């Protein structure tokens, strides 16, 4: 050993203390800030609660009625499910413009399989969900293997699925009454039950279950960590030993599957099956809005799926609240634009204060 290293030997007697700093923020506020810092999805939750309170004060008891509050849940159920799916893709730094189209297409498939070919409804549902998953698999493969940008893959897929939907269905609507008589299981998720005075539908329950399950898997399993890692820096994730291809495939397939379930939920909610449902055109933008309001970064790797769920609810509260307050349709549209920006500004501000 050359003698040039001698000076390094003193480190053997170096101090072994761990650096400690005083926490300069004390008491409840400090505690609260720490909580926000640790659980970012609290921020959209705060915005949500605040907007419910504000609308409640502005509109009065009508808004706090069990009917209005459960109505919000019912109205956001489709977007909520799609937002859960969208969150997954966005966490991997992707985006899925085809979620709404897949949901509508699978609902059409379930209906047509049952009514055109006479396949028993439960099997049609299974087939519909499987085809949704298969569409997701194609997108995933194009993103992961062919290395196409997710935006362009799902943009193409959106057009393809939507067009296929019209072509296959021949634009035919299947009536709610026909479904109720011949294939009630298609409408299964529309069934209601009472929960302390409020009416809930099974579709709402499904939404909550999907969100909760995804939140758990993203947080507590290796798969979830890999989803975040792939979104954060795919190159680093690959070098660190994540099977990026498998992770991406699993995400896109799961998204297709959840969209299939959303398609089933649509039949429950709207009774009939219509290929021209607005979700096919707007489902993507609505779900992305929820995701972004919920604080998930479009650059991937940051955010929580609960945030996206609260984001969907925030939009739902705004929409219903404004309509109940008597704003007309055009003004509602304008105000929602302002409130989207406002909600995210508040979100940003809370994060800053909490830092």
């Amino acid at each position: 050993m050359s003698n040039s290293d001698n000076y390094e030997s003193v480190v053997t007697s170096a101090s072994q203390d761990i650096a400690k700093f005083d926490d300069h923020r004390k008491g409840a506020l400090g505690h609260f800030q720490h909580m926000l810092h640790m659980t970012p999805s609290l921020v959209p939750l705060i915005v949500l609660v605040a907007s419910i309170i504000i609308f409640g004060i502005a509109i009065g008891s009508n808004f706090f009625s069990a009917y209005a509050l459960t109505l919000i849940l019912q109205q956001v159920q489709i977007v909520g499910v799609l937002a859960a799916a969208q969150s997954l893709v966005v966490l991997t730094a992707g985006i899925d413009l085809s979620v709404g189209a897949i949901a509508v297409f699978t609902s059409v498939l379930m209906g047509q399989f049952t009514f055109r070919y006479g396949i028993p409804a439960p099997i049609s549902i299974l087939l519909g969900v499987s085809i949704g998953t298969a569409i997701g698999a194609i997108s995933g493969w194009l993103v992961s293997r062919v290395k196409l940008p997710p935006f362009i893959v799902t943009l193409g897929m959106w057009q393809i699925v939507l067009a296929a939907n019209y072509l296959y269905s021949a634009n035919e609507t299947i009536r709610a009454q026909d479904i109720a008589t011949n294939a009630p299981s298609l409408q299964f998720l529309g069934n209601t039950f009472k929960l302390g005075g409020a009416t809930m539908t099974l579709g709402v329950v499904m939404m909550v279950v999907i969100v909760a399950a995804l939140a758990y898997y993203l947080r507590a399993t290796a798969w979830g960590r890999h989803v975040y890692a792939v979104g954060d820096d795919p190159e680093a994730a690959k070098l660190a030993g994540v099977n990026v291809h498998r992770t991406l495939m699993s995400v896109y397939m799961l998204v297709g599957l959840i969209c299939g379930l959303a398609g089933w939920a649509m039949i429950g909610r709207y009774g009939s099956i219509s290929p021209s449902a607005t979700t096919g055109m707007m489902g993507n933008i609505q779900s992305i809005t929820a995701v972004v309001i919920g604080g998930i970064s479009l650059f991937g790797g940051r955010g929580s799926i609960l945030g996206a769920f609260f984001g969907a609810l925030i939009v739902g509260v705004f929409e219903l609240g404004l309509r109940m307050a008597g704003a007309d349709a055009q003004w509602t549209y304008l105000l929602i634009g302002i409130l989207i920006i406002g909600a995210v500004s508040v979100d940003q501000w809370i994060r800053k204060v909490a830092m």
Partner: protein
Amino acid sequence: MEPILKGRNLVKRYGKVTAIDHSDFDLMKGEILAVIGDNGAGKSSIIKALCGAITPDEGEVWLEGKRVRFASPIDAREAGIETVYQTLAMSPALSITDNMFMGREIRMPGLMGKYLRKLDRPKMEKFARDKLSELGLMTIQNINQPVESLSGGQRQGVAVARAAAFGSKVIILDEPTAALGVKESRKVLELIQDVRSRGVSIILISHNMPHVFEVADRIHVHRLGRKLCVINPKDHSMSDAVAYMTGAKLPEAA
């Protein structure tokens, strides 16, 4: 003696640049092999070709006498080769623990782990904290803080700790002490020797000649994309090594 990790005639081109130019590589069992060379000589490129991070355009890689074709670093890792990349390969937004266990997470025992695939966080956290303490990274206050909030040196320490904890046959370190302080560098050098004494072979890329001459058994001198020579630190001085790698002097017999 057959090298544990062997590369033959490796070539890698990036557009017009030839990063690896028909180079060979030999790592013997249980040794510490230092790789030195100018910036841009192709050191990082060649070790990436050995551990599956890039696929060479030509050439062959052998591990323990068997021809291997690593399609990805995962394959290499499964074969027992662990690498600390120059870029560190960390997910900035994830915690230290998550990063250390990326791709080999530990599941809870029992039903929770089996059916719900729940991770055993307490166990992973304890392990991570132990490994970091071994390296003396004591300024890290919270094992669950995201890697992006660490200083450059702390980050490098985490990457080294990860490789040392999991490498079974070969550990490759690409400038592991570049951003480390004196104390932390010392710890890494000790750790390297420690790991070697467990029978693991080590490749160490470094620009720090005193460190190289202190720990290396053999020194691979890389120049302009290829192996120039391999020298024994006992027979050569630092000046010789620097002269070879910079092209100031030619080695006797390549």
